[in-house]
């Protein structure tokens, strides 16, 4: 699947909150906005539900990049403050990933509201290219070879 050159197709997992970014991704699709097919979306009710373990799991399973995206702080969150929980957890995870040797460019977390479908499509385009530049991560094999 993965060539080493620029022609490789990165695998990206997106954890999207049901109310904002998932809605935006849905709208982007329904509106037929051009975006590469590299992002696989996992819907959660709130980004506050995203256990950092999920992200590590995705990398461990073979993801080359991960996106976590929810509702804009301060007031967009459907659950009042779930996005703030994400806001606190993700920087910690970011530090941890780098210690594991995963470039911080492989992990994106942010906010896209339900009305921002074009922004979602743009994020998918840009992030896919960003990860493509970095090449395959292949974390699973790295971890297994060290054991």
């Amino acid at each position: 699947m993965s060539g080493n050159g620029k022609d490789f197709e990165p695998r990206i997992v997106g954890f999207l909150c049901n109310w904002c970014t998932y809605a935006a991704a849905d709208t982007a699709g329904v509106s037929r906005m051009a975006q590469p097919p590299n992002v696989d979306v996992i819907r959660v009710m709130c980004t506050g539900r995203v256990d950092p373990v999920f992200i590590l799991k995705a990398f461990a399973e073979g993801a080359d990049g991960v996106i976590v995206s929810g509702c804009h702080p301060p007031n967009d969150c459907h659950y009042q403050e779930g996005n703030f929980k994400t806001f606190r957890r993700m920087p910690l995870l970011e530090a941890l990933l780098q210690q594991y040797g995963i470039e911080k460019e492989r992990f994106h977390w942010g906010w896209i509201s339900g009305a921002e479908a074009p922004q979602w499509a743009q994020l998918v385009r840009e992030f896919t290219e960003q990860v493509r530049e970095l090449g395959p991560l292949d974390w699973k094999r790295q971890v297994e070879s060290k054991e």
Partner: protein
Amino acid sequence: MVTFTIDRQEVQGEEGQTILEVAQAAGVEIPTLCYHKLLSPYGACRLCVVEVVAGGRPGLQTSCTYPIEEGLEVLTRSPAVVEARRVVLGLMLSRTPNVEAIQDLAREYGITEPPFPTDTPEERCILCGQCVRTCDELVQAHVLNFSERGIERRVGPPFLEKTRLCIGCGACAIMCPTGAIETVLEQDAVYREKPLGPTSAIWVPSLQAVPRVPVIDTDACIRFRQNDRSEGEIADACGACQTLCEAGAVDFTQQDEIIELDVGAIIVATGFEMWDPAKLSQYSYGKSPNIVTGLEFERLSNAGGITGGDILLDNGKKPERVAVIHCVGSRDHNAHEYCSRICCMYSLKQAHLVKDKTGADVYEFYMDMRAFGKGYEEFYERIQEEGVMMVRGRGAEVEVLPDGKLRVKGEDANLGRVVQVDVDMVVLSTAIEAPHDVEQVGAMFGLGRSPDGWFAESHPKLRPVETNTDGVFLAGCAQGPKDVPDTVAHAGAAASMALALLDKGEVTISPATAVVNEELCSACKTCISLCPYTAISFLEDKNVANINEALCKGCGTCVAACPAGAITGRHFTTEQIMAQIEGLFRLPVETRVEEVEA
């Protein structure tokens, strides 16, 4: 009860009333200039003289000061009365020959020319003292009084000099029967700021207001102003509205109050605000009083407005040419991208009003005509038949010419040329936008907003009334620009949605809630502080956390945070999400794409 006769008709009045009061109540007309219901009678103008023929003190008496007595016989139109009034009016007309009210009264009594020399043609004051009593009794500013004696007698402030005691309320000018008092406001800038604002301190917010009751502007009301100025010493100034209100509905002690209610549903109907056209300088809004917004034009053409419904320029003349510019701030990348929906139709209506009331030439600068509703297209055709000039193209610029005329420039896309027209008045059909405090209101109810700033509905087509917060509904322009029929329909839908919810008496909640596995819970209490709904409590007896399923909305924040893995988020369990992640990588991308294509 006192019984007596007026013009040989038996009438009744209360003890202490005057002949004039009883006569007015009985519908007998007695002319008067110095009497006013709100003021103490003064007997200055002598026009209300009547003849007492029996009982009391016979002879000519001023009816405004004569208390009624049992058995009085009063004549209001006897030859002696008419002659007395004629003499008084003759004297008045000679003193103030150019006052219309006096001329009219004099004419009624057969006097067309002043019978005596008129040395003072510009004099308007008849020394009736209404202004003095108004300032003294109502306003309680005690600024005005009579000065000098005899032919020198006149009304004015102390020493006839400008005084700081005057509060500038203008009540004297309003009460003056001959228009002798002109208020010159030194701080007129304050008033110019809102030239089309309310005309008095008590008004009905809008003619369609529900309930249709007037409100008092405490900043403008004489009673409140005097109370504030005197720090409570003059607490009973004016009160004219209270005295005159027969229903006794005026209560000056009412205060704003915060009422707390427990409710089962909320309808957010916070409406819109007008966009400020001064933000786009090319329309020159604010540079000429004859450049008005659509809403200001409504005030101008309103029969209850300051011009009584006449469409007039700042100089009081009728306009000969009027331009209406559509889409000011709407469909404009420099302001609002959306269409405000209401402007096309109200602009056409205003063009019709201008045509109808002034006969002026009307130029409508429009981009597209959005006559979308029932009967709207027909109205558009009618306006065209009435001779309104339709210029297809955005009005690009309004220039105020040195002579006060307004030059409107724009492109006529149908002619393919730039056109310009000089007009007397420009009406800007300004955009409507979400109110300035929409963000706070949204935060209060947990409402999202669409990029245009209006509150977001649950689904643009299928759930246009509901929001993502259970039990909160949207009505009218809170959700987006709407005209009246659309707003009524939307509000009706919101009301029935709310009623359906209340009528059911119970709510259905999502089964996707979190649940604590009591065997795994280590009683760390991490989850309790995380829950935004305070759905998690700690059971001291069992030493475990407990989730109230009725309060839990299923966001899963506690699930992600539980260090013991004791909380399960139903429908989004850790196992389910992990399985999804694993499933994604079971097959390589290329294969999956092929599978889909096959």
